């Protein structure tokens, strides 16, 4: 008869993909239960925290790498993290330049914006040069300004602004596990330098305009740039079937959308961009999921 402890282990095993469970469930149970033979333990015992943590780690790795479908999903998660970091590089640099050019010196704001920019540049550069743990730590450091901002202004717009940064950090931690492939150095370092340069140039040019909250200002506001850049990438991906890229751009557009919608409540001029982003996100999401379903969900050896 199956013990309660075994049932509890079987529940834990459900974190693993079905194909993996079919292959390994019995032998994993055999290892777990080899030394747990005490009657009371079999009735009232539970899987330990260390075992649970270790199995959840394995579940994450098998769900985001391995067979083509899981690998594509993992690539999408990692791409969302990289796109998010690039957006942070651009925005962080632009905010910092804005403060430097501003007549009123706000040292704390400058430090926080530099933290966002430098943390994100550092995370991208570290990942692209093979320093995974350093990349994760710097990626989390870049989250600090967002956390502080949310703590001091827990308003809807602050949450909408913070959402992409939280999602970026989450995708970074989930996607870049110990065995995940790291991004190629040259294209991502180039993209990082470009995002930083564009952020600085964008705000340098805008600083010539009066910041009066007018409709003109909103049209050229910083949030516009990543939205249109991703929309452009989305248009290209509509005709080029790349499942991971489609899903990643769809998710990134959806993450940037709430900030646009909050702005829309005050400035109708944002409407065309918000609609474009929403439509593209939906189209890419549907196409990406369809692509994903077509990929084999089990490794070639087990198919």
């Amino acid at each position, binding site marked *: 008869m199956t013990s309660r402890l075994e049932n509890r282990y079987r529940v834990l095993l459900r974190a693993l993909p079905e194909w993996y469970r079919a292959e390994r469930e019995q032998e994993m149970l055999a290892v777990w239960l080899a030394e747990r033979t005490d009657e009371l333990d079999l009735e009232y015992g539970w899987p330990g925290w260390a075992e649970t943590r270790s199995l959840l780690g394995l579940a994450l790795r098998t769900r985001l790498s*391995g067979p083509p479908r899981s690998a594509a999903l993992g690539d999408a998660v990692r791409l969302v993290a990289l796109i998010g970091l690039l957006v942070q590089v651009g925005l962080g640099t632009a905010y910092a330049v804005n403060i430097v050019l501003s007549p009123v010196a706000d040292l704390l704001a400058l430090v926080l914006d530099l933290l966002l920019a430098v943390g994100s540049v550092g995370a991208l550069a570290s990942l692209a040069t093979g320093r995974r743990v350093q990349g994760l730590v710097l990626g989390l450091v870049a989250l600090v300004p967002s956390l502080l901002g949310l703590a001091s202004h827990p308003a809807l717009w602050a949450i909408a602004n913070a959402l992409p940064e939280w999602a970026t950090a989450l995708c970074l931690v989930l996607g870049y596990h110990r065995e995940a492939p790291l991004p190629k150095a040259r294209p991502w370092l180039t993209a990082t330098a470009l995002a930083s340069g564009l952020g600085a140039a964008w705000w340098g040019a805008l600083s010539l305009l009066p910041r009066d909250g007018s409709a003109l200002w909103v049209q050229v506001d910083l949030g516009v740039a990543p939205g249109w850049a991703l929309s452009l990438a989305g248009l290209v991906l509509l005709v080029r079937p790349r499942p991971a890229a489609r899903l990643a751009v769809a998710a990134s557009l959806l993450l940037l959308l709430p900030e646009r919608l909050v702005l829309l409540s005050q400035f109708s001029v944002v409407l065309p961009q918000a609609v474009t982003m929403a439509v593209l996100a939906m189209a890419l999401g549907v196409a990406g999921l369809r692509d994903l379903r077509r990929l084999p969900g089990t*490794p070639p050896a087990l198919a």
Partner: protein
Amino acid sequence: MYRGAIYTRVMSVRGMSEQTLLVLTALAEQPLHGYAIVKAVHELSGGRLELRVGTLYGVLDRLVADGWAERDREEVHQGRLRRYYRLTGDGLRALAAEVTRLEATVRAASTVLRAVGGLA
């Protein structure tokens, strides 16, 4: 080998993890099943390392994907499946290469320690 190729490249640059090294060492002696590998790694590490099931099968998946280990046989013991794994020729060579690398590192560290009088 979709994942194996990436992992092999990473390991050749950074060296292998202690868990992988000890699992390879355990399998070098004879084919073992999961629980026996856990016990062997515990002994080989002087009781320092307790291999969890998630970690063990993560390591085994990579070794099999890289062609360093393969399935040997299956047995049923007290109503439970025991699947044995054995080292391949490539696995043995990878273990030997890692041991050579570690020996060179230990030699270099020992030389420095002797020079500063930290090692008899």
